[in-house]
């Protein structure tokens, strides 16, 4: 029984952490967040050069053979830095699909240039009506000779405005919420019949609503088996859930630390507000909530290949959802008026962690999934 990192993992953690400290301060982040859809291209190039886009992929695919521990290490630091670069969309979501089911040719076309930073990817797995059910796929891909004809909508496609290639889940057979009959397809964003409506999200990430009207793609753009993609979809989303949960832990720990620091320096009634016992106990509760989240992350990391992983991921997401919102609200409250200003980073941590609760199913969704897997 051993919770220590390997030397390589420690090096990775230190390098990301140092980068956040030295090259990704809040001011830089806010400047980049104000830029257009592509954000800072040079920043993304740096991510690629530092090898972070490669970590999660097999050496054969040009990757560094990292696993869930490496993912968690990266994401926790990204949380701490409030990173807005499209890592989740490119690497975890689209990359996660490609590494699992793409052919060698498909990998060369989309995965390799993503890893080098040359190509932007996105993954559309949600639709306006699907809420948290990834099997709720109404967008149809109808076989027509050597092509598929696509009709329908994808919602909240992260990085969907900058992406040159968009992977989507589509229904090739079955009813709207069937697990069977879902397929994965990679589509050039400029394909006729596709229209994108880009927007910013509350946490300064970028997304798009994507409409498909008789968009025609080649049958070679099918990823994996037609109709049999649900298992892959679930694995990718579970990995992404682990990723944002790790990010949430980075955010929680940061918010807690900043609140404790603030409480030591903010003087009211002639004393630091951190000397008030009611606030002290609340900051202890925040710490406990954060530590319990980290413990569940460890559980997930231990189980990475286990059949219980789904259950563990749901436990983790439930926990970071509830603990995250608890910690974030307390952090804002204990910062007083300053906590609700755009100027202070606390507000932006708050917004990111609020967004994370919604991503890939909220606390209630995962509590119910956990309970059903536990029964």
């Amino acid at each position, binding site marked *: 029984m051993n919770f220590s990192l390997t030397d390589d993992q420690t090096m990775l953690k230190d390098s990301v952490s140092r980068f956040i400290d030295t090259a990704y301060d809040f001011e830089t982040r806010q400047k980049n967040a104000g830029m257009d859809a592509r954000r800072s291209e040079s920043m993304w190039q740096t991510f690629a050069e530092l090898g972070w886009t490669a970590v999660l992929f097999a050496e054969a695919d040009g990757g560094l053979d990292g696993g869930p521990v490496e993912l968690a290490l990266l994401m926790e630091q990204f949380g701490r830095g409030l990173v807005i670069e499209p890592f989740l969309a490119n690497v975890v979501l689209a990359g996660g699909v490609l590494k699992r089911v793409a052919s060698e040719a498909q990998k060369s076309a989309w995965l390799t240039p993503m890893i080098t930073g040359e190509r932007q990817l996105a993954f559309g797995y949600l639709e306006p009506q699907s809420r948290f059910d990834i099997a709720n796929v109404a967008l149809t891909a109808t076989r027509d000779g050597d092509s598929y004809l696509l009709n329908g909508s994808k919602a909240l496609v992260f990085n969907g405005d900058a992406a040159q290639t968009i992977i989507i889940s589509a229904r090739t057979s079955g009813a709207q919420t069937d697990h069977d009959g879902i397929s994965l397809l990679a589509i050039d964003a400029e394909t006729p019949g596709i229209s994108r409506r880009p*927007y910013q999200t509350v946490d300064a990430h970028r*997304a798009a609503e994507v409409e498909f009207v008789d968009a025609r793609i080649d049958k070679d753009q099918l990823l994996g088996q037609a109709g049999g993609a649900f298992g892959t979809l679930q694995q990718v989303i579970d990995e992404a859930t682990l990723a944002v949960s790790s990010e949430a832990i980075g955010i929680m720990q940061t918010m807690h630390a900043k609140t404790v620091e603030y409480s030591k320096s903010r*003087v009211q009634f002639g004393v630091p507000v951190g000397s008030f016992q009611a606030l002290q106990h609340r900051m202890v509760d925040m710490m406990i909530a954060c530590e319990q989240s980290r413990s569940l992350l460890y559980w997930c990391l231990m189980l990475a290949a286990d059949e219980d992983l789904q259950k563990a991921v749901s436990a983790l997401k439930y926990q970071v959802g509830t603990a995250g919102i608890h910690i974030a609200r307390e952090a804002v409250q204990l910062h*007083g008026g300053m906590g*609700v200003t755009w100027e202070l980073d606390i*507000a932006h941590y708050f917004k990111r962690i609020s967004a994370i609760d919604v991503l890939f199913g909220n606390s209630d969704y995962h509590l119910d999934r956990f309970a059903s897997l536990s029964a």
Partner: protein
Amino acid sequence: MNIDLTREERQFRDVIRQFFSEKYPQDIRQKRDAGITLSKDDMVRWQRILNQAGYFAVNWPVEYGGTGWSPVQKYLFDTEMAAVNAPPLVVFGVKMVAPIIYTFGSEAQKERFLPDILESRVWWCQGYSEPGAGSDLASLKTRADLDGDHYVVNGTKTWTTLGQYADWIFCLVRTRADVARKQEGISFLLIDMTTPGVSVKPIITIEGEHEVNEVHFDNVRVPCDQLVGEEGKGWTYGKVLLQHERTSIAGVAVSKYRLGQLQKRSRQSIDGGSALIDDSSFRRKIARVEIALKALEFTELRTLASVAVGKAPGPESSLLKIRGSELQQELDALSMEAAGCYALPFVPEQYDVDVPLDQRIGTGNDTNTSLRYFNNRKASIYGGSNEIQKNIIAKHVLGL
């Protein structure tokens, strides 16, 4: 015990209800229902409609042009106003500075300031908090030094809501520093925002909107006749104000309207299948809020009943503030939950101009939800944070 309204009260309610159904402008209503921020003009126009009907200065005595309404009448008015989602009054003039002026001001001040407030010709804002004086308001540092027949004001006020629209500001300022208790030496001053040396700097809040400001005073010369009441009594006046208009502090009427909207929203099917209310967890959360809101409503009515028999609302208004803000925030959170993924898009432009619902990102007002959710974290902070309210109850009610 009897909750039935008297015949007169029922008639009053019917008249009010008819007024709202006839006089509440369609265009403002559409904006409100679509979650679009009202312009200054919208707000002024609506307040003037209210005033023409004699429904504006609800809290003022009749002699100054007020309604002279009983607490029950005010409660009914608030309830009817919220039921149609009409915009709440901008409180700084009519509800905040006016009572100070007609209670403690000189006759000249009453004549000079009250009519403009009544007719919404002058927009007021509040200068209480300072960067270093939040919960500990009495530690404020903005100085007003006497120089002939003027005060020279230097300092910074913050969290000044809608200060960007304001013509005048009412301030708590320090006129004496050599005092035993910091509450002493504070005076209540009215300042024209166009006076040289006054500058307003926007503060953008968490959700990205410009609602509050910092107001700087750099050697601002204020004529002494703009001091209200006695020098050094400002803290007392301010405190009276805080206890003055507390019957609606809980915001029950507005929260009831919002709960109703949320219930309606949650009964709609998302995709022709199940509705959110079919989720037992969400249904229970809604039920919990409905119960809590009913409890708060009756707490407010109990307070109202005491006021009606002549008891001043005391520290129990702290309870209304705490629970009221908590429930508002709970409704915010449930609205977020209902919106699901469509709580995430941040598209403020579609709420600045009138974008038709079907051309918006997301469904209905969902993408507006997060703005309110984030912004309203302030509800438990401003007006004396909930922690301060608990201190007040602990000290004044529990005797701890």
